[in-house]
């Protein structure tokens, strides 16, 4: 395949691999936690980008898949005694199936109506999990610590989770790249530019949109399971935070919607920025204000995001930054 010779394909992969190797080389658990939170953001942002960036549909409910995947996997592990690997597959497939059903229903809506519907989906899902007893209700679920023994003790299990997280991140980047340069991806971008025109040109818009939605739902589910497996406990409030859905949108916009590299830089950048603001005494109390002002400046002045801006400004970089 020709894409393996392109620098734009290797750049994001090498970036993620380097960041992922850092805690492994330093063998430092604190670094690992920092990098884990970055990887979660990158996965969320990159997967949302397939819908938001390529297709141009704003989803305020991306976290629903994160939460549902986590809950599905957690339930299978703590109640049914599945292994993490089997649970990961289901944590990806169940949200994907949910996205398929949801997509069939709400992707007929366009623009703002779809965005509003996804807010409703988010809230309804949270409330449902809170009340649904087999999944723990409002007290959530806990993992028995003995479960970590299957993975060589708690400390080793955390490292295993970390390796899995790197793998998922690489997978989402490769999928995101493949979609962008496929005929399917071209169809999505045509829908983004003008849905009616795209349909006239032979793009079956409802199907394409639904599949974009399904693909974007797989990865948050898997990474959600890994995230809560690490914490050993899951609560509805943590799994379905509407706020995180919107922060994910901020990440995509910050890096550059519709590019492969953008959401990676945006996710990592936003996560680090938030971390820094939280520990700086001057900004700790007003970190939300700083983040808000930053977002406003991006929206008003560089709506294409960092990568989009660089591509516009330095055309020679277009081969590398994709």
């Amino acid at each position, binding site marked *: 395949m020709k894409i393996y010779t392109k620098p734009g394909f290797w750049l994001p992969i090498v970036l993620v691999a380097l960041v992922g190797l850092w805690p492994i080389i330093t063998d430092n658990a604190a670094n690992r936690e920092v990098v884990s939170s970055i990887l979660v953001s990158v996965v969320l942002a990159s997967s949302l980008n397939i819908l938001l960036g390529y297709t141009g549909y*704003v989803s305020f409910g991306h976290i629903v898949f994160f939460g549902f995947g986590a809950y599905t996997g957690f339930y299978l592990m703590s109640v049914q005694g599945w292994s993490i690997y089997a649970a990961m597959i289901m944590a990806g497939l169940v949200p994907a199936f949910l996205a398929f059903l949801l997509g069939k*229903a*709400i992707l007929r809506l366009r623009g703002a109506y779809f*965005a509003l519907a996804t807010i409703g*989906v988010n809230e309804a899902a949270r*409330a449902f999990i809170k009340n649904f007893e087999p999944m723990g209700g409002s007290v959530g679920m806990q993992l028995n610590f003995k479960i970590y023994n299957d993975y060589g003790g708690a400390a080793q299990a955390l490292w295993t989770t970390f390796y899995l997280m790197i793998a998922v991140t690489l997978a989402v980047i490769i999928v995101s790249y493949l979609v962008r340069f496929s005929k399917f991806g071209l169809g999505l971008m045509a829908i983004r530019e003008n849905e009616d025109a795209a349909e006239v040109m032979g793009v079956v818009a409802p199907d394409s949109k639904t599949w974009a939605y399904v693909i974007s739902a797989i990865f948050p589910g898997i990474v959600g399971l890994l995230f809560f497996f690490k914490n050993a406990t899951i609560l509805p409030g943590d799994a379905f935070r509407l706020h995180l859905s919107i922060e994910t949108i901020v990440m995509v*916009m910050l890096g550059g919607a519709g590019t492969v590299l953008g959401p990676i830089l945006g996710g990592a950048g936003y996560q680090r920025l938030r971390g820094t603001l939280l520990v700086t005494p001057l900004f700790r109390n007003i970190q*939300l204000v700083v983040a808000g002002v930053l977002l406003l400046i991006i*929206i008003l002045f560089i709506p294409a995001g960092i990568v989009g801006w660089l591509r516009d400004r330095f055309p020679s970089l277009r081969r590398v930054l994709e």
Partner: protein
Amino acid sequence: MFDILLPSLVDGLMIGFVYGLAAMGLSLIWGVMNVINLAHGPIIALGMFGLYLAFNTLGLNPYLALILVALAGLLLGVLIYYVAVQRVLTAPHLSTLLATFAVNMILIGIGTAIFSVSPYNVDFSMGSMDFGPVRVLWTRVAAALAALIATGLLYAFLFRTRQGKNIRAVANNRVAAELMGIPSSRVLALSFGIGTMLAATAGGLIATFFPFTILAGGGYELRSFVIVVLGGLGNPLGALVGGLILGMLEGVIPVFMQTSWVPVIEFALFVFIIIIRPSGLLGSRV
């Protein structure tokens, strides 16, 4: 059964008027400029705190203070429009959603820094009166009345004044309105201001009978979304009707099942309506 049902129904309906008022603000902004104002919640919360400050610090009567809150809401809205909305008005939906969300973050951030997230309440009571099994709190009656008056004033403004006609003209067709000599940018700023004014007023009214925190606006913002979709985006009267429906549901559902199921039913209804009839039960208009 009826003895339990009737009081909760009446209670729910009265709160419904206030919900309707809050949703009207969202609906107006949507109808005029196609912007979903994600800063709606914090503005409701600021309305609550505005009333709190005017009542506790200045010692004003809450309903007098409400006028101040409304004015402050109007000015804040105009400011938000010029700073955050105007530049992205012609950009795709995503931009206005994110711009107003950035305003949301800024307002919540400032509010949290000043008031922290601990609960406040306005210690004000006008007593109550019993009508058979129904006990009516006068603060709620006053809130419902105030919401009705505000709706009446909004309609009078939109249909009877020059400015109101300008707003409707711009909502209908901005380019044509501009050609007729209407300063559309100023008209849009005014509409945004009126939208936030309604939200702040609703917040002030809610503060007279419920305790609140700076984050409390989020819940009312989501309710406003549900209501606006029920009533049809961009239709103020529909918002009032939607508010009453939602208030009624919130009053009646806890009689039959646990209170925690209320949001599930609300949002299921929301998604259902948005799928089968995206123009809302009453259709959209302005």
